[in-house]
């Protein structure tokens, strides 16, 4: 009997290695070789055309083949094998395209710029001592705190208020949601026009500077009135400001009112204006998304609870704080998690607008700069690892919460 189970186990093991390892491996290799040969024969355009049907046929045949092999296994162990068969390829793919690169990046972060020699923790020391890296990390922290909080708060308020509307709720919600439909690159391009600066006496095409320079008597954004030309180069007119190039408030007129030397005004003068203005773009983009998700959560609150609150004489604010917020807490956590990951990956806004100049850099752009601009693979990998470490608590938190949800 014992002999029998041992044999059965061995047989099962043989079948599963054959079906889940050897056969797929052989199958993938043959496909890779076939395509390598094909690239020699046919042109690229044709190759792309045949790759899609051929590739999907391969996957189809892969599963049929695996299924056929599993059918040789005894009946009672087939279920387990079939489950493995469906999960297996995706685990393999994740391993190949996600896990392996991650491990290799970690490994490269301990090597020099050409990935030749080990340098120990040198790259990590650089990451926490280099002035530019410190600024980048500071910006990333400001972005994390401010963008996530602002998006959540404004999203909650908009979601709550639109829910109270009698008419036109979907209309307002779709307007607020609309920036989400624009790519980050497009949104940044829009805001670049808002912040645009031109040296005088050129016409200001940025809306903020356009309004600024036309303030006051006899100041016009280069207009011709009754055949007479009016500009803004008079000393009494307000000068245009290069918004995305202001690292602090010192160049702005407001700085003069803040020169009293107290710690509060000192801190205020050091506000990174350009970073704040760039964060506005992201808040603008994601507020709508947050609002729509929150509004769905608010709709799910049973009417009885709200009515009970109203009957007890609670004010709107009290209802919002004591009923709405606790009820949709899990939604807030989910949106918050999503926002944290999005901010850590934030790349396109900086890349399109300032490209990290004048202390606006973020980690994702820095990673690319180290790779392609300074060609330092070690440092680039180190920045990638730092981003990964920042995302790690979020991933673990989400996983823990998922487990709790499953348990309960």
């Amino acid at each position, binding site marked *: 009997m014992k002999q029998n189970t041992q044999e059965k186990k061995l047989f099962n093991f043989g079948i599963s290695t054959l079906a889940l390892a050897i056969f797929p491996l052989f199958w993938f290799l043959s496909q890779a070789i076939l395509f390598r040969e094909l690239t020699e024969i046919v042109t690229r355009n044709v190759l792309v055309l045949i790759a899609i049907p051929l590739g999907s046929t391969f996957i189809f045949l892969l599963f049929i083949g695996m299924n056929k092999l599993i059918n040789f296994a005894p009946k009672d162990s087939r279920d387990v094998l079939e489950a493995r068969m469906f999960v297996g390829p995706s685990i393999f793919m994740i391993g190949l395209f996600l896990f392996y690169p991650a491990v290799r990046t970690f490994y490269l972060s301990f090597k020099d710029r*050409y990935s030749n020699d080990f340098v120990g923790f040198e790259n990590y020391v650089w990451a926490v001592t280099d002035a530019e890296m410190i600024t980048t990390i500071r910006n990333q922290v400001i972005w994390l705190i401010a963008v996530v909080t602002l998006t959540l708060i404004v999203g909650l308020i908009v979601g709550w208020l639109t829910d109270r509307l009698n008419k036109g709720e979907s209309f307002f919600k779709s307007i607020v949601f609309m920036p989400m439909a624009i790519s980050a690159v497009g949104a940044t391009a829009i805001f670049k026009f808002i912040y645009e*600066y031109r040296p*005088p006496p050129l016409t200001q095409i940025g809306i903020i500077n356009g309004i600024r320079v036309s303030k006051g008597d006899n100041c016009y954004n280069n207009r011709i009135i009754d055949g007479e030309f009016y500009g803004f180069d008079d000393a009494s007119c307000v000068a245009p400001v290069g918004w995305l190039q202001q690292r602090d408030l010192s160049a702005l007129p407001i700085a003069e009112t803040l020169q009293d030397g107290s710690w509060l005004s000192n801190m205020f003068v050091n506000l990174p204006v350009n970073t704040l203005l760039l964060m506005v773009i992201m808040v603008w983009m994601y507020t709508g998304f947050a609002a729509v998700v929150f509004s769905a959560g608010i709709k799910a609150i049973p009417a009885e609870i709200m009515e009970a609150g109203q009957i007890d004489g609670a004010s709107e604010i009290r209802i919002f704080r004591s009923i709405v917020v606790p009820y949709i807490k899990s939604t807030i956590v989910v949106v918050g998690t999503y926002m944290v990951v999005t901010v850590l990956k934030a790349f396109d806004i900086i890349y399109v607008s300032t*490209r990290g100049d004048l202390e606006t850099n973020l980690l994702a752009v820095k990673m690319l700069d180290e790779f392609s601009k300074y*060609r330092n693979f070690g440092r680039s990998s180190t920045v990638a690892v730092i981003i990964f470490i920042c995302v790690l608590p979020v991933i673990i938190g989400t996983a823990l919460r998922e487990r709790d949800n499953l348990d309960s």
Partner: protein
Amino acid sequence: MKKPLLVAFLLLTLILGACGGGSLEGEEVTITGALIGEDQEGFRANIAAITEETGIIVTYQGSDNFEQEIQIQMESGDTPDFALWPQPGAVVDAAKRGMLTPLEDLDIDLDEYKSNFSSYLVGLGTVDGVIYGGANAANLKSIVWYQPAEFEARGYAVPNTWDEMIALADQIVSEGMNPFCFGMYSNGASGWLATDWMEDIMLRTGEGVTSYDKWVTNELKFASDTVTNAATLLSQIMHTDNYVVGGTDAIVSTYFGNAQDPMFSKDANGNPGCFMHRQASFIPAFWPEAAQAGVGVETTVFPFPVIDESLPKAALGGGDMWGAFNDREATKVVAEYLLSASFHEPAAQQPNNARLSAHTGFNNDLYSKDINRILGTIITDALAADAFRFDASDLMPPEVGAGSFWKEMMNLAVEGPGYIGTAMDNIDKSWP
């Protein structure tokens, strides 16, 4: 009876076929690079001539993301036959990583190559005495754009020396106008215009070309007197009140391509926003369309003023350089053509061409545009006299040349002359 004949026939075709392998008709050679738009059209016209003469199908594909793409291609081994880098430093980098084929293996006559393109240019693509890079086009940076009509109307003379330029600037300021246009914002590369100014001043102060070459290798530190003096002269332009239209804000905020626009725009009194703009030869492509038509006539150039008159007249420029990734027969033939004096002729005759040949034997009269004839002559003369120097920041390690040097120039513009010492120290410290 017929069989031996057939065998003989087959053998003959085989032998002929083997010999016929010498023809490169239909072979494909690919070149990638950063040239796009008009430049790409010009380059394609140049290589079309190769295809016409040899039958080799040469294709060029430009991309504004070229430098990242070629990095990835080199990592994966999926390289084109040639890459045309906008700066020679990248060629040296690729050669050091063992990616490129030496020109000697491409059967290039190296002595002839050196005498055609000057030993300085050739030296830029050389690693440990082995030549990897092929010089191609050059551009000129040592020029100041101005409008002769505006100068004449006010009785201004074109300044030949730095002191004359400062005197002219002071006169313009005293008449209530701004002499200079200066904008160095450039997405991800902000600050390079100031590094260009520094380089032009360096070539004309200290020991000229000699101290310049030492500076490139950090043998001459940024904190040295010569370099600090250059920064002080630059700061004089940036920070003297009313010298630059819009002041510091304009310097750091204006996109370099729009920096000259005030010159083409008149204020309420009919005065242009500025009178002088030091910028490289490519800048007309960024001008408003109406101004572009008058390039070389309405808006033209004077050479960057002499500072130390005992030094020879130098020219600062940039240029691209190609590297070859293999030594196929077709690659060798194309390399030969890329280095010939006539290579740039088709592009030179195009109406919108802005690229200038770096070949000293190039016939400058062939350029269809007036401005290109002026610039081309300055370049070939400087090259022949070995007084042509490449952009120093392009030759420095990328952490400096594309990192701290740019960054500290931006900081200098914001912080003012008191920051010069700190800026120089910071750049020296970042040298790897």
